[in-house]
């Protein structure tokens, strides 16, 4: 029998070691796995590398993880926001390493990581500082930059509903990075609003097939912020 469900968030993240690399879903607050992040903060592994689109909003979620001093490096596309004060301060103090990646390169590098692609040529960033030191190639008269995959030890994502096989559906723009990140980690953990019986999810609606999910936990309905 396959049962990937876990009774609580703590047991989903209890084996995250010091120095781990984590893919963290979400675009701003939408799709941000707040409850899983709170469990990581409680476990307190150190020297984490976080791959996520943003670098925390306000004082919760990723911002709280940064504020707890558990992160040494952030790989993201858009750290600067009106409410990114936690990241801003740590970065200015030199306490955080930042790898800035254009958003499309970020998601495609994660996709490549999950899809078994060794590297890919993308036009994004050609001729800009992002491409400094990288291999380039002209293909059919257009210039491209070679980018390498991103993989992680764990992916923490938020979905809408799931079943015990790990099949997932998403809600509106909270989908964002979740389906791609789920493919690119050794262990993918999904928090969902509720876990439903097998067969209750319409197979036409399943966005992430269970093969990509290792653990899921129901956290109930909570308004995203």
């Amino acid at each position: 029998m396959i049962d990937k469900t876990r009774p609580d968030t703590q047991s989903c993240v209890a084996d995250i070691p010091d120095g781990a690399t984590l893919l963290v879903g979400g675009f701003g607050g939408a799709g941000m796995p707040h409850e899983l992040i709170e469990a990581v903060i409680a476990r307190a592994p150190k020297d984490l590398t976080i791959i996520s689109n943003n670098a925390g909003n306000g004082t919760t979620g990723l911002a709280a993880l940064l504020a707890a001093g558990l992160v040494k490096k952030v790989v993201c596309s858009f750290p600067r926001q009106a409410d990114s004060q936690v990241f801003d301060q740590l970065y200015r103090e030199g306490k955080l390493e930042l790898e800035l990646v254009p958003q499309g390169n970020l998601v495609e590098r994660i996709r490549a990581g999950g899809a078994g692609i060794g590297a890919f040529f993308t036009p994004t960033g050609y001729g800009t500082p992002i491409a400094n030191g990288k291999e380039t190639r002209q293909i059919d008269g257009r210039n491209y930059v070679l980018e390498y995959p991103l993989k992680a030890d764990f992916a923490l994502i938020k979905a809408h509903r799931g079943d015990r096989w790990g099949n997932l559906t998403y809600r509106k723009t909270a989908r964002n990075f979740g389906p791609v990140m789920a493919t690119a980690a050794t262990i993918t953990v999904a928090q969902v609003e509720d876990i439903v019986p097998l067969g209750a999810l319409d197979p036409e609606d399943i966005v992430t097939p269970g093969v990509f999910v290792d653990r899921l936990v129901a956290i109930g309905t909570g308004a995203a912020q």
Partner: protein
Amino acid sequence: MSEIATAFKPWTRAEMAQLIAADIPDGAIVNIGIGMPELVADFLPQDKEILLHSENGILGMGPKPSPNEVDYDLINAGKQPVTLLDGGAFFDHSLSFAMMRGGHLDIAILGAFQVAVNGDLANWATNDPNAIPAVGGAMDLAVGARNVFVMMELLTKKGESKLVAHCTYPLTGLGCVSRVYTDHGVIDITPEGFVARLLPPGLSLEALNARAGIGIRAS
């Protein structure tokens, strides 16, 4: 500057947004960047069907919700609550950026720090070492959208022209901008350089050139 006619008043941001909105053809797929370009959404003509794309996975984005419709699972690239039109769709980031990078968007409207005469765009970082860098989806839009429109004021707060011979700020994309909507006129980027497409009432081409400090030709 004495050569500027006293009758001249730069276009307001709302007027610039109206001009852009009027230039978007019926049926266009458009990505509106965060910041100043967001105003364009307020002026989209009702008699045209224009599909708005948002990088975080929306095609067919609708206007702001009423207070009781706010859903923080339905936000735009600026992380503000929005709505979905009938016929709209949600999708993941990989597909969203395939739309952008793959040439499926007709128009991207972006803000800018500088636009060069060859269409180079600088809009994600200044040379301020204290600034937090952030690029988001700008580079993907710059290389991928069929037309990149820039919306910006002509001059910086210090009075320097943002239309330049060469960008001095870090580049977002090479040769990607097709048209610039400024408070001092609409300027096309052509193989022959900057060409004035439309000027505000009371501003002559000579006066615009004096302010911009760079050659802008008559259309």
